[in-house]
């Protein structure tokens, strides 16, 4: 799917959001190494384009929803999660989007349509299928996104979800971030077919393979899938070819990557690709980019400072939020 040029304002929003995500992920890494963020984290730097293109198609007021994976900071931020609750959650502090009970792997913000970032591989997919079932029954025109990695394709939940959504023709988009690895294992060692998209035919579904570093190509692919869903034609499987610059999680040095691979991908950086296009179209210049960069850095730093000032949750909250009443 080739890129379709978007209006300047949309481009600028996407560019800025990608820059923001990049800054956040770098800060998360730092905070993790300083033990300010504990547990584990999975960074999405390199994959920012998928998140911003996706978010452009999500309208929570219409009822749209998203599920994604533990590698979900990018999606949460692109959807509009505020930086303060984001960082407070990462640190397990009061003011976190989930009151510190979720952490990096479990971000939820229903106000932006984010049902959750799922830590069990494949677990989010059937839940998105169910959200799409609500849409079909309520006829509210909403569209639902299930985002997952290339490695997740091999889990039973993936198969059952695509099948059920196809049989019921539900308004859901299955969006794969194929970043070539599931943890430390390359995609082709666990898949018998070259592309995740090769599996769509098993469910009679249309598939789109798209450059995951090109926000405008992604945007076009998602538009097509979104229209397909909305006109009652059911799901689409989109495979975005992308790359994570960091290791799988925490301190993984990604020693399993062949020499030169990272550099190849860095040469196709999603922020750079969109920025270059905007520069060519005279919509932005180096100065403005520097200004934006400074702006997002300041925003991020201020949010981190805010989060650091939040107390840890009172232990009286320990048994709250288990039961609804």
């Amino acid at each position: 799917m080739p890129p379709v040029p978007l209006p300047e304002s949309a481009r600028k929003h996407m560019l800025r959001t990608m820059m923001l995500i990049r800054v956040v992920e770098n800060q998360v890494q730092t905070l993790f190494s300083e033990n300010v963020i504990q547990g584990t984290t999975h960074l999405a730097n390199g994959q920012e384009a998928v998140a911003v293109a996706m978010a452009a198609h999500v309208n929570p007021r219409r009822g749209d929803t998203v599920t994604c994976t533990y590698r979900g900071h990018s999606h949460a931020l692109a959807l509009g999660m505020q930086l303060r609750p984001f960082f407070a959650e990462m640190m397990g502090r009061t003011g976190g989007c989930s009151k510190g009970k979720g952490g990096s792997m479990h971000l939820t913000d229903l106000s932006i349509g984010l049902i959750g970032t799922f830590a069990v591989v494949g677990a989010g997919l059937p839940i998105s299928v169910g959200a799409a079932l609500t849409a079909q029954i309520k006829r509210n025109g909403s569209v639902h996104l299930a985002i997952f990695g290339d490695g997740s394709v091999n889990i039973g939940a993936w198969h059952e979800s695509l099948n059920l959504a196809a049989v019921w023709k539900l308004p859901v988009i299955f969006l794969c971030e194929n970043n070539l690895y599931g943890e430390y294992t390359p995609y082709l060692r666990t898949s018998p077919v070259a592309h995740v998209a090769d599996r769509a035919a098993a469910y009679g579904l249309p598939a789109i393979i798209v450059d995951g570093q090109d926000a405008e190509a992604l945007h076009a692919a998602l538009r097509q899938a979104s229209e397909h869903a909305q006109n009652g034609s059911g799901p689409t499987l989109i495979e975005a070819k992308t790359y994570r610059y960091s290791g799988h999680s925490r301190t993984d040095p990604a020693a399993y990557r062949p020499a030169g691979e990272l550099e190849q991908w860095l040469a196709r950086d999603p922020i750079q690709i969109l920025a270059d296009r905007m520069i060519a179209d005279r919509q932005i210049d180096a100065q403005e980019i520097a200004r934006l960069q400074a702006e997002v850095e300041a925003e991020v730093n201020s949010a981190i400072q805010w989060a650091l000032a939040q107390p840890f949750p009172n232990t009286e909250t320990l048994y709250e939020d288990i039961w609804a009443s």
Partner: protein
Amino acid sequence: MTVLAYRDAVRRALDEEMARDENVIFFGEDVARAGGVFKVTPGLFEKYGEDRVRDTPISETAIIGSAIGAAITGLRPVIEIMFADFAAVAYDQIVNQAAKMRYMSGGQISVPLTIRMAHGAGMSFGAQHSQSCEGWFMSVPGLKVAVPGTPADALGLLKTAIRDPNPVVFLEHKALYADRADVPDGEHLVPFGKAALCRSGQHVTIVAIQRMVQMALKAADLLAQEGIECEVIDLRTLSPLDVETVQLSLRKTARLITVEESPLAGGWGGLVISRIMDEAIWLLDAPVVRVTMGEGIIPFSPPLERALIPDEQRIIAAVRQLGIKR
């Protein structure tokens, strides 16, 4: 009062709640057009249509997961997992997702979901279609577990389950589907966490659920002939668990027997004992006896199965062990 079969009481609950609230939907394998393998749900598809009553592929993970997603986004799904044993293929969606999503989201998410499953032994269905699976679910905070033993409770507990804003595992005992008994007319809701006193007696408290309540009542009848009076309690829900009713009874009887249709290590008796421990240790005149299948696996062979699952004779034997003096 109307006499209703247990299976029809389940259907009536579903029917009433679907009529009351258009957000209640129902799906599962062969439940719509065919009315379910246990013939619990005929007529609902015809009455409520294809949008709200659906047959699914054989995909338990997708069934449960999609019901969670529908619940989060505003519907009140009821789903059927044909045999509770099959929940094992989708255990993650129940215990890791449905049960924990509210907590992990800091209270943002509600999962008003009812998962109906048939469980229990006594039909010669073998090791993988006969288990009593309450232990798989009641051990998980975030899930409620209902275990109706009578048509009236099937009706009243299922209606309560559907209205509950939390995920409820609703375990129907398959050997009770044909049981017929009085059911109140009009709106009938049974609250969660309230055990039923099925028989009063002063010598021993027998706590049970579902088919084991019937066994306990049979045993009580027989023991009454020799002057031993059993108090029989039906827990009705395992989460929440009505400890108070058991404790109250123990203050009178000072002796406790649990009758469980599951392995010793998997049953709810260990939890009951743990919860009453504080008081019981001073009250009890005899060790608590748990009548279970021990470390058994359910065999197909009908006489073997009958020998494994507790019955009135084994309950009577347990009572005799207590050395009750009349």
